[in-house]
């Protein structure tokens, strides 16, 4: 089991839906559980962030040290 934390840096307090492989799978600022492996991560809604999407490999994370992905 892996743990992912996605942050939207432009408005850190705003919660946005997180897209994993194109599906709304969780929300920003909160831990998302997932199987280890490669995924494409993006944000739902307005395209006011960069990069448009990030391909990540999640492996070896823990709830207290989740893999962090930031969009700005």
């Amino acid at each position, binding site marked *: *089991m892996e743990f992912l934390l996605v942050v939207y840096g432009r408005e850190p307090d705003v919660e946005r839906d997180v897209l994993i492989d*194109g*599906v*709304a799978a969780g929300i920003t600022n909160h831990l998302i559980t997932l199987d280890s492996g490669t995924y494409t991560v993006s944000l739902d809604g307005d395209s006011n962030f960069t990069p448009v999407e990030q391909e990540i490999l999640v*492996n070896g994370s823990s*709830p207290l040290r989740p893999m962090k992905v930031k969009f700005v």
Partner: protein
Amino acid sequence: MLAAAAVSALASCAHYPKTAQLPPQKPAARYGFEQIPAPAADDDLLVCVTFSGGGTRAAAFAYGVLLKLRDTPIVRGKDGRHETLLDEVDCISSVSGGSFTAAYYALFGARIFQDYRRVFLDRDIEGELFWKAANPFNWPRLLSPYFSRIDLAAELYGGVFQNKTYADLLAGAHRPYIILNATDLATGDGFEFTQDQFDLIGSDLAALPIARAVAASSAFPFLLTPITFTNHAEPDWYKPPGALKHAANDYYVNRRRYTWALHQRTYLDKESTAYVHVMDGGLADNIGLRALERQLVDPTGFLSQRYNKKGKASRIVFIVVDSKSGEPSTYNKEESPPGLLDVAFKTATTSMDNFSAETIEFLRDRQRELDQARQDIEACKAIACKPSDVADFAGKTEIHVIDVNLEAIADCDQRARLLSIGTNFSLHSTDVDQLIRAAGDLLDQNPDFQSLLKALRPPPAAPPTPPATK
């Protein structure tokens, strides 16, 4: 000469019914969990049940569990509405004999408690299938290379399910959502009767008779033949799931995900996989739990989404119903080794129970990991300077795993008696009675089930405030 020509003509005409190709425009309705409304208008309590394979023994045991859930009252919501635990069942994933009960309940709801015993459990399905195959009128059809015993079985089961299709399940618009599981003979991996799976073979699940899905799920090796589906080209609108591409890089990171994706990708190669031949779901997973586990660990799965999003579900409950795959072996009483038929049967079924225990433990491990993660986060918050800096889950979802297994019967004689009931499709009604009763008893004595009921009990009402005295 004329008769031979007629037989030959009939044989050449006989063909299994082909699946419909996906239309060029994406259908608005598709058989998926998200398309089917929750039973009590909320997903706060998400109950998923799995029914194992094991012939009528499994079907009756599964029916006993449904009966017990129907007779288990619970109180839900802020308005304190009275329901039964059965009302909260959102999905059923099933294999082989268990697929009959799952499909019948999904199609006909509470009617199962009126007529299912007559329509299926108390019937000699095996005998009827034998006589159908023995009927000389069916012989020309059976001579065709494109029509076999499993197609006759699907016709027989059509009577059980009143020739309903997945379109009828969609039109019913009520849960439970069902995943009937078969096994792809080429890859050895599970083949689910869901639109997501059928997308990969370019086929429209809506038009498929439920009976054919159940027949595929219960096509026991040697006794029955595989069911065949044409692997159609996908329409332009279809995009395969991202995991199929990404997991190709994950061999050293997640072999399980890599292998699943590798097998699923074979369906995209329309030349090498022009047809898909599927058999009994028990060959890949005899308890039907793997399909649901994937929904929990894959972040795009419907269970994962409910775990990771705010206010989606406060409890996700797995009730794993396993009637085991066969009778206890007596081989070791004899010096002479088992004969060819015994070895063939054992080869086909041994892996089933081995996988079952591992699969349940995999789920329990996920449950423990998540519980531990929550404890670690709470402990960290307690000592952190700024607790809000410690990332937490969006929701407070608790996972329950309830293992209902004939092997857990405490009384040795009763356990031996029930495990010795055959796993064929013809049982004496007293055996059916015992299996139904055992399911209820096992739930009554199951500590995890009792913990769930305790957790679902409404908090005691506050005592009335005494009138103020002057």
